[in-house]
């Protein structure tokens, strides 16, 4: 006679306490955030600042003023702005990978110190010692800026553990890309985050390509929001090209986490117009594909349309652009002319204490 298995199988329909799409249903019910006009203008300004800043960074890279790796955020602006506008900046923390300029700008950090970091100057936010991929602002609870694909997910789990340990009511927002989503430590972290009910929102910024490898060529499951299912983490699927949709999703996810219900996995579908980094040959996709995204899905143009429908004029929006261009030009000028770190900086900050 066959023995009973050590653990009986779950009968279909009995697994009612967990629903993968429970948050998605709440989100679908109110899919676009009802932003006030002032909020919409602020989103527009912030996204445009990222766009213009990154365009300028690309230009400075071409001039040899920025070295090494430089990963631009152009096309993905709605993700950082939609999510970070919903944070409680007194309590919450953010961590991301190396495509980090946009997340810094979303905090309102002075573009000058970010651009000066890109050019490797002493006035840079990391004193010129980190570069494009390694920027931090502990003052804003922005924890970087990490160059090893996927490492920020486990580190984010630790930030969430600290929120829980300190009972400070904060949550951690941990961004990673579709490429990082295939790293093992992401799932190690999912397991512990769910096991310990950590206050963390995992955000997959799916920009469709891990460097040059399309998601369908690298991922058996390209619906990344489903990848928390094995750990009982609810998923959300969000149009990352619409800032109001991202913001609405953020509201649902953050409320879930703040209620002590544990982690959320949010997939934001987005698109990067530029190469993976500045040295990307872009042989893996067509010009037409990129153009189609720019013409029909651009997050800034999308919001502009909404603003104009709400009564704003082209001239008013142009004035915003003009102010941003001048702010970015000033940042670039500062980054070009401010001095490199002194040779004495070579040995500082290796250790905190002296032994």
């Amino acid at each position, binding site marked *: 006679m066959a023995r009973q298995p050590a653990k009986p199988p779950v009968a279909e329909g009995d697994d009612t306490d967990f629903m993968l799409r429970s948050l998605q249903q709440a989100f679908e019910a109110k899919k676009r955030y009802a932003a006030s006009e002032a909020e919409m203008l602020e989103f527009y300004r912030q996204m445009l600042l990222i766009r213009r800043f990154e365009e300028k960074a690309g230009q400075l890279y071409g001039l040899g003023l920025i070295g090494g790796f430089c990963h631009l955020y152009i096309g993905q602006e709605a993700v950082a702005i939609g999510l970070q506008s919903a944070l409680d900046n007194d309590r919450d923390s953010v961590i991301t990978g190396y495509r980090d300029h946009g997340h810094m700008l979303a905090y309102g950090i002075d573009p000058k110190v970010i651009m000066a970091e890109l050019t490797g100057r002493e006035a840079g936010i990391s004193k010129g*010692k980190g570069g494009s991929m390694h920027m931090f602002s502990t003052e804003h609870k922005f924890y970087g800026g990490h160059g090893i694909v996927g490492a920020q*997910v486990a580190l984010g789990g*630790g930030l969430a553990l*600290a929120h829980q*340990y300190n009972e400070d009511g904060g949550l951690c927002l941990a961004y990673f890309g579709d490429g990082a989503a295939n790293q093992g430590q992401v799932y*190690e972290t999912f397991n*512990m985050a769910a096991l310990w009910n950590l206050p963390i929102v995992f955000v997959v910024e799916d920009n469709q390509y891990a460097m040059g490898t399309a998601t369908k060529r690298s991922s058996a499951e390209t619906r990344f929001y489903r990848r928390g299912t094995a750990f009982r983490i609810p998923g959300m699927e969000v149009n990352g090209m619409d800032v109001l949709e991202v913001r609405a999703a953020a509201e649902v996810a953050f409320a879930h986490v703040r209620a002590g219900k544990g982690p959320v996995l949010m997939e934001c579908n987005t698109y990067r117009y530029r190469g993976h980094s500045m040295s990307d040959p872009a042989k893996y996709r067509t010009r037409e594909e990129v153009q189609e995204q720019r013409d029909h899905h651009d997050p800034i143009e999308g919001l502009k349309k909404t603003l104009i429908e709400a009564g704003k004029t082209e001239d008013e929006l142009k004035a915003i652009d003009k102010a941003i261009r001048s702010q970015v030009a000033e940042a670039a000028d500062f980054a070009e002319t401010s001095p490199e770190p002194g040779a004495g900086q070579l040995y500082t900050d*290796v250790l*905190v204490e002296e*032994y």
Partner: protein
Amino acid sequence: MGIELKMPALSPTMEQGTLAKWLKAEGDRIEPGDIIAEIETDKATMEFEAIDEGVLEKILVPAGTEDVAVGAVIALIKGEGEESASAPAEPAPAPAAAEPDVAARGEEGRGEGNSAKPAAEPLKAKAAPAHDAALPEGTTFISTTVREALRDAMAEEMRRDPRVFVMGEEVAEYQGAYKVTQGLLAEFGPKRVIDTPITEYGFAGIGTGAAMGGLRPIVEFMTFNFAMQAIDHIINSAAKTNYMSGGQMRCPIVFRGPNGAASRVGAQHSQNYGPWYASVPGLIVIAPYDAADAKGLMKAAIRSEDPVVFLENELVYGRSFDVPDVEDHVLPIGKARVVREGTDVTIVSYSIGVGLALDAATKLAEEGIEAEVIDLRTLRPLDKQTVLESLAKTNRLIVAEEGWPTCSIASEIISICMEEGFDHLDAPVLRVCNEDVPLPYAANLEKLALIDAARIAEAARKVCYVK
């Protein structure tokens, strides 16, 4: 003929244990699979299961007996339909009893996997520390195992600072795979003593992130062999971020656990990672030998604002040393210690190698060679000054390291002596390291591969030009 039940070896390094409890009485019937006794090793309490069938005829070692040698006959079982076996008057002598001073040394002998080591651990290891002269007059000492010293250090720091917590595999309910975290769960609760899944990369990252977020994690690796899965976070995340952020991102974390060869556990579980971590700027690397240093440096490590890799040694956990009975025993990081003074040759070592170096020094003294033994204690930053001062005094130096020779701490010491002590050298600096092979399992090959006191003494004679 009755069946003899012998004291089992319940771990690779166990040589003796306590027969805590008999769960069967004389005359009880025994089936295979029955739990007949509880045996306490230096690591855990284990159940002793019967594999024979019969009647428990005679208990030879009563419950509560300590230091029962592995292999000693503890009871007799009478098989089905057998005559009573005549019980021997005394339990059969165990193999370990060949070393007559095992019992006298108490804990000292435990965990000493390499039974071929030439002599008992000399008590000279307790020689007055030359560089920790801060102990007040009249300080008393308490004999403590390295295991207990590490636990006491963690417990004291956890009482002192609510941000300090411990995480790792089996640290809480199991009481530590090597019992180092014993009792912490009961005192501090599950919030501060966290059992993790077997997921080294993940929990090393979570620990590092928690340190960045303002906590003071102690991350235990069951052994540092498993930390290779997590080395990315130790180096790329913990060690480099302060620099990359221009000093903004602090990472006050301690990664700790046993390191180096244990006993007969094969190549994947027997590696010394000291040289690996010591090569990384941004890390502090500590590898103590005795209990007083283990305690004082663990406390310093937990208080440090920098990430610390704290390398322990399984074979040393059970050894007892005097620990000063003071309120707050904290030692400076980055300071070596002269553990034995001498005039003829300097032996530089760390971790388990220090014990072997002291054995070698005892042997050399009988031959008229007075060796000075230096315990580096911290591998990064390395205390060059203490090494060079000793070299200036003895003019001859060797390095004893339980680890591979290539790109080793020994290589580094040799380099320092060449660059900064050349004029003091009367002989080339020699290194005594493990053989340059993955550690073999077979007892004889393992013994051949690992350093021992005889090889250290031989190298010392060589640099002294004595045959």
